[in-house]
C-alpha cells in the first residue's frame, strides 16, 4: 500500500473540489472496494477524500419515483419498505450481494463503482489492460471461469461483479452526479461502459465527478419482479449468473418486460432484445426460453466459462417463471 493523504468533506461541493484539484485523488465512501484494492497495490490514490459526512443518506419517495442518496448503505436500501414493496428486484439483488457486514459499509453510489473480481486485474502483476492500459489481457487465455461472455472485447473480458446494478439497469435508474462542470443525470444503461479498446474506462464519470443519488422512476409493474443469483455457494459469493426480471402481464399476455443479467457480462447487462421477444407473448416456457436464447445469442465463450451461457439462459428462464408463472 502506498502512502496517501486523507481528507474529509462535509459537502458534495467541497468533495468535488478536493478530488478534482488532484489528479490522483479518489472519493472514499464505504471503502469496500477501494481499500481492498489499495492493499493489493492495484489502486494507489495519492489523496482519499472521505465523503461519509456529506448528507446523502436519505431515501426520498416522491410522485415521480424514489430518490436514493448516494451514501445510503446497501442494508438500508434493501430493507427500506418502499423499495421492498415497489422494487423487490432491487431489494433482493442488494441482499444477495456480499455479507451483512459489507452491506452495512457499502454505499449505493459505491456499488456503482465496484470493480471487477478478475484475478489478473487484482493480482497487480499480470498483463491487464484495465489496470495498465496496453499491457494485454491475461484472462483471455488464462483461468477465465468467472469471466464474462457478453460485452467482451479482445482487450478485456472482466465481469462486472455487482448485483445491485443489475437490478438498477432493469429498472432504468438514473444516476445523478455533481462534478466540476456542474450537475448531470446519466441513465444507468449509459453509466457503465463496455471495455472495447479502453477497458480502463469503466464509467461515464469524469475525474472529480461524484455520484449524489440514484433515482428510480415509477414502474408499477416492478412490484412483480425478482432477482435470482446462481453461484458456487449459497451466500457471500459473486454470481456465476444472475437475472433481474420484471413483468407486466394483463389478460394472460406479457405487456412489458425488463430483463437484465449479472455475472456474465462486462457491465450490468440489460437484455433489450430479449424483452421484445416477450412482449405480446403468453407467460409460458416457450416465450421464456426464446427470450433467454435471444439474451445470450451474442455470448462468446472462452476456455473455462462456456457453461455460463447455458447457466445464464436457465437462470433467466427460472426467474421469468418465478415472476410470470406458467400458463
Amino acid at each position, binding site marked *: 500500500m502506498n502512502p496517501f493523504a486523507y481528507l474529509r468533506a462535509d459537502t458534495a461541493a467541497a468533495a468535488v473540489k478536493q478530488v478534482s484539484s488532484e489528479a490522483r485523488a479518489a472519493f472514499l465512501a464505504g471503502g469496500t472496494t477501494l481499500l481492498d484494492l489499495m492493499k493489493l497495490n492495484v489502486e494507489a490514490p495519492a489523496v482519499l477524500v472521505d465523503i461519509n459526512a456529506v448528507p446523502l443518506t436519505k431515501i426520498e419517495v416522491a410522485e415521480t419515483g424514489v430518490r436514493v442518496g448516494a451514501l445510503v448503505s446497501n442494508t438500508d436500501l434493501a430493507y427500506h419498505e418502499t423499495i421492498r414493496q415497489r422494487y423487490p428486484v432491487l431489494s433482493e439483488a442488494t441482499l444477495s450481494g456480499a455479507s451483512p457486514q459489507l452491506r452495512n459499509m457499502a454505499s449505493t453510489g459505491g456499488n456503482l463503482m465496484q470493480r471487477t*473480481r478478475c484475478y*489478473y486485474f487484482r493480482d497487480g*502483476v499480470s498483463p491487464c489492460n484495465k489496470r495498465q492500459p496496453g499491457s494485454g489481457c491475461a484472462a483471455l487465455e488464462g483461468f477465465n471461469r468467472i469471466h464474462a461472455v457478453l460485452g467482451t472485447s479482445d482487450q478485456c473480458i472482466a465481469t462486472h461483479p455487482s448485483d445491485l446494478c443489475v437490478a438498477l439497469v432493469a429498472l432504468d435508474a438514473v444516476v445523478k452526479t455533481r462534478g466540476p462542470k456542474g450537475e448531470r443525470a446519466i441513465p444507468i444503461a449509459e453509466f457503465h461502459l463496455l471495455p472495447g479498446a479502453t477497458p480502463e474506462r469503466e464509467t461515464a464519470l469524469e475525474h472529480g465527478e461524484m455520484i449524489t443519488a440514484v433515482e428510480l422512476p415509477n414502474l408499477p409493474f416492478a412490484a412483480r419482479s425478482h432477482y435470482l443469483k446462481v453461484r458456487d*455457494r449459497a451466500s457471500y459469493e459473486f454470481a*456465476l449468473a444472475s437475472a433481474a426480471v420484471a413483468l407486466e402481464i394483463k389478460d394472460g399476455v406479457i405487456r412489458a418486460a425488463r430483463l437484465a443479467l449479472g455475472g456474465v457480462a462486462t457491465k450490468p447487462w440489460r437484455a433489450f432484445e430479449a424483452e421484445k421477444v416477450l412482449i405480446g407473448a403468453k407467460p409460458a416456457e416457450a416465450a421464456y426460453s426464446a427470450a433467454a436464447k435471444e439474451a445470450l445469442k451474442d455470448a462468446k465463450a472462452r476456455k473455462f466459462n462456456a*457453461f455460463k451461457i447455458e447457466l445464464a439462459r436457465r437462470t433467466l428462464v427460472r426467474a421469468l417463471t418465478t415472476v410470470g408463472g406458467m400458463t
Partner: protein
Amino acid sequence: MSTKAVGSPLDRVDGRLKVTGAAKYAADVSAKDLAHAVLVPAVLAKGKITAIDDAAALKAPGVLAVLTHKNVPKLRPAKDDFFNGGKAGEDRLPLADDRIHYAGQHLAVVVAETAEQARHAAALVRVAYEEEKPVLTADDPRARRTLPKESFGEELQYHRGDVDKALADPGAVTVEQTYTTPVETHNPMELSATVAAWDGDRLTVHDATQWVKGTQAILADVFGLPRDKVRALCPFLGGGFGCKGFIWPHTILAAVAAKVVGRPVKLMLTRAQMFVGVGHRPSTHQKVTLAAAKDGTLTAVRHETTTETSPVGEYIEACGTATSRIMYACPNARLVHTLAHVNVATPTPMRAPGENPGTFALESALDELAYALKMDPVALRVLNHTAVNPATGLPWSSNFLKECYALGAEKFGWKKRTPEPRSMKDGSLLVGWGMATATYPGYRFPASAKARVTADGKAVVSSATHELGTGAYTIFTQAAADALGLPVGRVTFELGDSSLPPAPVAGGSNSTASVSQAIVEAAQAVQSKLAQMAVADAKSPLHGLRADQVSFGDGKAFAAAEPSRGEPIADLIGRGGKGAVVGESATRLSEEKQKRFAFQSFGAQFCEVKVDEALARVRVTRWVGAFDNGRVLNPKTCRSQVLGGVIMGMGMALMEHTAYDERTGRPVTDNLADYAVPVNADVGAIEAYFIDKPDPHINALGCRGIGEMAVTGVAAAIANAVYHATGKRVRDLPITPDKLL
C-alpha cells in the same frame, strides 16, 4: 481408574478467554521495540534472480533492513527428524540462493518500524529474473517422476495376492475409474505468524504452530544452537489443519530478521501467502480398479495415485495406504504412488492427508460397484468388512465399524432409500442419499507430561501439546482431573510451550491418544508419591497401610478397603513441607502392542442432497455420521470436531479449488472470496453419533483421535448422493454447477 469428568460435555475451559478476546494468538503478541517484517514473493514459477534492487525500499520511511539471498546470514541445514526433532516444510533453507522454484517463493524480507511501512517498502523491491519454462502439472512429460518407497513409514508401492489374476477372471464384476481432486488449501482463520526475539544467544518465538517442539528443534538447528536455547510458544492456535504442522520458511526468516536488526520482529503472512508459504493438499489423480464376485465379495483392489510436490519438497499425498490397502477384506490388492515434481509451492499434510482424497476415490468406486452389482452400498461394505488389518493380518485393537453402519443407517432412515437414480424427489428438487466409510489410523506417539499438586489442593498439569481450537485444553483438563482424583475446577492444564515436557506434533489426530496417556501416568506418579507419604506419615489416618492400599478421589487419599478412612491430599501435601508434589511421565505405545494390534478408527457417513437440476445447484440438506474413535472424552468437543470435519468435506466436495494460471503457475484463487469454503447457508443439519466404547489396547482411557476421520468419506458420500439424485457421476472435484449442467 474412576472417571467423572472424562465423558462429560464440559464447556471449553478456554471458552471465556476466546470469546472475550483475552486469548493471545501469535500475532497478538507485542514486544518493546517491535519491528515488522513483510515478505517479497516471486511472481514467476521457475528461474534465476539476476538482480535485486532494494534502493527504493531502503530509502522508504521506517525501513530497517532488506534481507535477500545476497546478505542473509549463513544458516545451517535443519535435520529432518519427524519422530525426535522437527520437520521443515521445505528441504531448502529460505533465501538459500538465487534459484526460483515456484511462484510465491519468498525472495526478500523487508523489516521496518511498522507493518504498513514494511508492506509499502516490500512493494518497492524490484527483482530482475532470468525466466525458465516451468513444469506446472504432473502430466507434463518434462516432470521429474519418482515412485517413492514409503511415506512416514508406510509402504507406498504395495502388492498382496495376485491382482492381475483376479481382474482377469471373466466372472468378476469390475469397476475401473479415475477420480481427481484439485489443489486444496487449508485456510485456517488465523494467518500464520511469528514473533521472534533474541536475548543474547537465546531465541524466543511466539509462533502459530501445531508443533512447538518442532519449531524449537528446527530453529535450534538452523542457528546452530542447543535446543534449550530456543523456546517456542503457542498457547492458542486459530486453526491449522496441517498447514502449521511442519516448520515453514517464514518462521525461520522472522528469527533471522530479528537477529539482523537486533530487535524483536513480527512477521505475519498475508492470506495470499497462505496459499504458497505453508503448504496445501496437492492435486490427486487416482485410478481405482475394483473386482468382485457376483455376490459382492471383493476379489481385487488396485489404487494408482499420481500426485505432485515441489522441487524443494518430498511430501507425497499417500491416497492408498490407509484406505484401499486396509479398509476391506480382499486377498488381492495393489498400490502405486507416483510423485511428480512441479514448479508449484510445496504441499504438506492437510486434514486426513491421503485418507481424505483416497476415500473420495475408493468410496466413490465402491458406490459404482454397488450399482454394477445391484447391491445396497451399505450391504456391500458390510459384506466386505474385515476383522483384521488385511495388510498385516493383525486384529484391530477395537473395531465397531459394523455398528457404525447400523447406527448411521438407522438414524438416517437409510432403509427408505430407493436405489434407482433420480427416483426420489422433494417437489421439483431431486433428492439423493449417499454414504461412505470414514477411516483414519489410530496414532499414538511418544508424549510426556508433568503434574504438580500443591498444598491448596490444586493441580497444574502440563505438556508441550497444542490447542488448535479442537478442545485440547478442555479434554486434557478432564483427563487430568480424573487421573488425579480432583474436581476439574481445581486443575489447570498448560500447553503450547516447548519448555514443557515434550509432546508430539498436533498432527495425525494423535494428541488425544498420546497426551492423555502422558497425563494419566504423570498423575499416577504423583499419587504414588502421595501414597508413600501418607503411609509413612504418623499424622495421616492412612499411616501404616501399604502404599498400594491407598486410593484417590474427590481430592482425598483414602484406604481402598475403607473409603471413610482418609484425608484431603491438600493436608498431606501441607504436612510434607515442600508445598507441592510433582509427578512426571514419558510414555509411548509399547512394542508389544504395536506387534499385536492394528490401530485404526472407522465410521460411516450418510448424507442427503437436494439438487435443483435446471440451475445445477446442490445443497447438502442432512448429515448423519456414526464413528468409532474409542472412548469419547468430551461429547461436546468431539461433536464439534465432527461438525468441522463434515463441513470441511462439504467444501472439498462442492467448491474448494486452488486454481493456477496454466502459463505462469501463479495461484489465481488465493483469497477467501475466490477460494470458496462453505458458509452457514450451505450447511444443513449435521448429526454425529459415537459408539463410545474404549479401545482396550491403545491407552488407559481407551481413546483415539477424531479430527481427521471426520472429514474422510464426506466428499464420496456427497458425490454418491449427487449420483443418486441426478444419475450423473462426478469424478472430478469439486462438484460445481458447471459439472452438472
